[in-house]
């Protein structure tokens, strides 16, 4: 359903998300934790809310994944070469993400600006849900805030779309989303201390290099073969349990 390179790319993005999200989205998690009750901020009280919030986010990612997967499927039916184009696009976005992460070039900001137009439609919905005090409310809020303009999510979506089927894309995005949870939770619980560590430039550079490597892999297994004149579908390994 998903080939190794795409899945590995999504896993890598999920793992490296900490360096990107903790400053931005970690703030949400911390603010949510703060909202539970400023006086009583014990872990036990904050954890259910934080977990639900993050699950809500993953749900939205999966829905978005299903949508782009559908687009992928449609375009594949349109023309067989569309998959090569999609993979190339995904690889380009991965490279841009890597550059964004390392703070070398922030071209992805433009994409985020586009996304923030869409977000402005959704945002009032989120405001109505605040302040969050129950896990149920946090789940809903997470589902809304999952649509925040975010370059990382867009890159992940581009990558997920290359599976060319809604279920695979949704699964890929779910895996990506789940892997972002640890960093986000840490952002909500330890906030500033961890934040400082993860925003460390060296760490971000390492993560960026990792993403660049995966971008190369995604490109090579998808489009590189075409360029090299090999017209088989690349080595599309399937997840062993599917």
């Amino acid at each position, binding site marked *: 359903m998903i080939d190794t390179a795409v899945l590995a790319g999504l896993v890598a993005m999920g793992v490296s998300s900490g360096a990107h999200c903790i400053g931005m989205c970690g*703030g*949400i998690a911390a603010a949510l934790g703060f909202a539970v009750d400023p006086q009583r901020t014990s872990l036990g009280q904050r954890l259910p809310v934080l977990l639900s919030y993050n699950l809500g986010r993953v749900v939205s990612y999966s829905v978005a994944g299903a949508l782009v997967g559908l687009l992928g499927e449609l375009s594949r039916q349109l023309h067989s070469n569309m998959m090569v184009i999609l993979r190339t696009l995904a690889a380009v976005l991965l490279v841009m993400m890597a550059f964004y992460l390392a703070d070398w070039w922030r071209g992805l900001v433009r994409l985020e600006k586009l996304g*923030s137009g869409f977000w402005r439609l959704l945002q009032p919905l989120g405001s109505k849900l605040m302040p969050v005090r129950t896990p149920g409310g946090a789940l809903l809020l997470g589902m809304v805030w999952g649509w925040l303009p975010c*370059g990382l999510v867009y890159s992940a979506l581009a990558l997920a779309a290359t599976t060319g089927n809604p279920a695979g894309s949704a699964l890929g995005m779910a895996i990506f989303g789940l892997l972002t949870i*640890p960093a986000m939770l840490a952002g909500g619980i330890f906030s500033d201390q*961890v934040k400082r560590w993860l925003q460390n430039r060296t760490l971000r550079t390492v993560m960026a290099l990792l993403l660049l490597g995966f971008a190369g892999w995604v490109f090579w297994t998808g489009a590189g073969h075409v360029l090299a004149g090999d017209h088989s579908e690349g080595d599309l390994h399937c997840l062993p*349990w599917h």
Partner: protein
Amino acid sequence: MTTSCYHCGLDVPPDCHFPVTIEGIEQPMCCPGCQAVAIAIVDGGLGNFYKYRSQQQTRPEEGVDNRFAAYDLPEVQEEFVHHLDDGQLQVELLVEGITCAACSWLIEHHLQRIAGVSAVRVNVTTHRCWLSWNNSQVPLSRLLSALQEIGYRARPAGDEEVRANRKRENTRALQRLGVAGIGMMQAGMLAIALYAGAFDGIEHQWQQLLRWVSLVVATPVVLFAAAPFFRAAWRSLKSWHLVMDVPVSLAIGGAYLASVWATVSGSGEVYFDSVSMFTFFLLLGRYLEMRVRHRNEQRMEGLGQLLPPVARRVDDQGEHSVPVKALQPRDFVKVGPGDIIPCDGVVVDGHSNVVEAVLTGEQSPVEKTRGDAVSAGTVNSENPLLIEVQAVGKRTRLSAILQLVARAQLEKPRQLALADRLAGYFVGFVLLVSAAVAWHWYQQAPEKALWVTLSVLVVTCPCALSLATPTALAVATHGLRQRGLLVSRGHVMDGLLKIKRVVFDKTGTLTTGEMKVAKVISRSGAPEQKILAIAAALEAGSRHPIARAFDECDGGLMATAIDNRIGAGVSGIVDGVRYAIGREQYITELFGRSDELPEAPAGGEVWLLLASESRILGWILLRDQLRPDAADAVARLQTNGVQVELLSGDRPVAVAALASQLGISHWQGGISPEEKLAHVRQLQTQQQPVLMVGDGINDVPVLSGADVSVAMGDAADIARIHADSILMSSEIGVLPQSLTFAHFTHRIIRQNLGWALAYNLLALPLAALGLVPPWAAAIGMSASSLVVVLNALRLSRGARR
């Protein structure tokens, strides 16, 4: 200098413009994401979040110079500024926010550019900055705010060092915990994929990928997060001691290396998830323990941190800020609502509520008005108060309390030493057993030898054992303080357990010292009300305890020409008639008239005679009040199987009356301190450990003979009190509570030790038989430590009740 994103703290690139208006100020953001998040947070009504972020983005703030102005005062500088021979000044600063060599470069260059600064030296590891400057060219406050401008907060180094260290320790621990936590979750999820894959017959290539990612994730956990274990283990080995870090290090290091080998060679099993989980839970246990320790230390922190550095002094020229150290007795200071009172003193103007929790453990505020005493460190909660200074610094009650607490901390309770030794032996035993297990399995099934040994090392880690006692004791000592019993000796917790008798030394420990009208006997047909009204008018001007007894009897009469003879009586003119009230002898001398005493006064009772020039009006009996909870406390002690005794130097009649009111059957009156001590000694030889309650000032020899002594002193006398513990809240009910609490603590410690031992004894054979996989061992070990810590925390919940 680039601006940093108000939301996430990263640099904002010059070409970006994503502002958000927060609390009326436009703040820069680095990207649309942060912009969206910030808008969402503010619109969601969580704008306060930015205000209360624990470490705000350090940025130049308005009024910075003002904030540091106090450091320019010579009295304040005296403490930490050195005068060099060439007229320059030198200071050692503690700088927050130094993380690397670049910081020191930045600080040195930034400060050296300021005219008047002659030398700057920064030590990155100790976060110290030595600064010499010419005071006539630039004040210290300017230099401190210059540091603030580039994002470093600086304070003069002194006893602050301790606090800074603690903060650093805390941050470091959190970082390690964070790394281990993230690593654990990532490695855990990857492991789930691996296990799931193993069932479905995963492709080798795919398995290898997951293993390599796990390796990347687990490496910082082992190298960074687990570093303290390795370091402590190495230290302990060098000094020929065995601590639990030794097996822990062996387990973490061994499992990690074996997993690395398995990954590189593409064979065998990987334990990256177990390693991360083990490290995380161990660190979590340590972190919780450290937090408890830090919180205790903070409570006994030096004066400087509890008190504000600057006070508002009021004199003829108005109001101005002066350093607290410069305050003198008889100065007047103004304390605003919400401020900490900087000195001991007396309220001369204003009316407010003051929270005295730092002294008594009592959170509800105490009303303070003109004439009431207030203490340094307590918090003025409502209205401004004008206070006449009586004592500052080391002479305050707060200082005395802190010294007592510090002494208690230095004395290591016996139980702790025992637990340390026990854990040491246990570690040795575990290492021997592990070696035997490893050898055995290597003979029988070499492929299993490694993980079985790992499991043994991990599962038997005696962290629970070594956490059991100290955590409980730390929580318990604080619990007693919250109840109002300040423990100033290490043996108190232990001693409270054995107490069979509570002996009250002095009747004063059971009474409030507040006189009340108990009886009125009219001699000339004058109505009782009139007698009391005249007495109240005569006594109205005095604050003597006897005079205050009439506060409730005010009948609207006014006295003039009042003449107060201390220790004898008062005379004055009410409605044109001259009256006098006082001792019989005083009336006789004044008016040449007398009357027979109605009955002999018992202890704590006084008969007053009221007369006019022409006749005797009547007698008024005043009686010292029992403490409201005294009878209840005595009854509760007795039902708990503790005998209560009253020993007093007062006349036996008085003591008997008091004892019968309280239901105390063992009492002795009219006995000397030597006799009291002998009595206590005798009780002790009969295996009846004694808790003695006294005032801690006049009865020190007797108190020191008891197994545990409790002083019921007024907080005002705290500096002079000598006792093992001090009842700060003056509620006797705390005594039975404390005894129960000590037994509760003991029970918790026993449960903890019992649990830890039982767990280890059960887990060891199972692991040695190869029935416990390493990940289960990590969970088991961590759970057993958590059980112990959480069990100890039950004490703090018990204390609040």
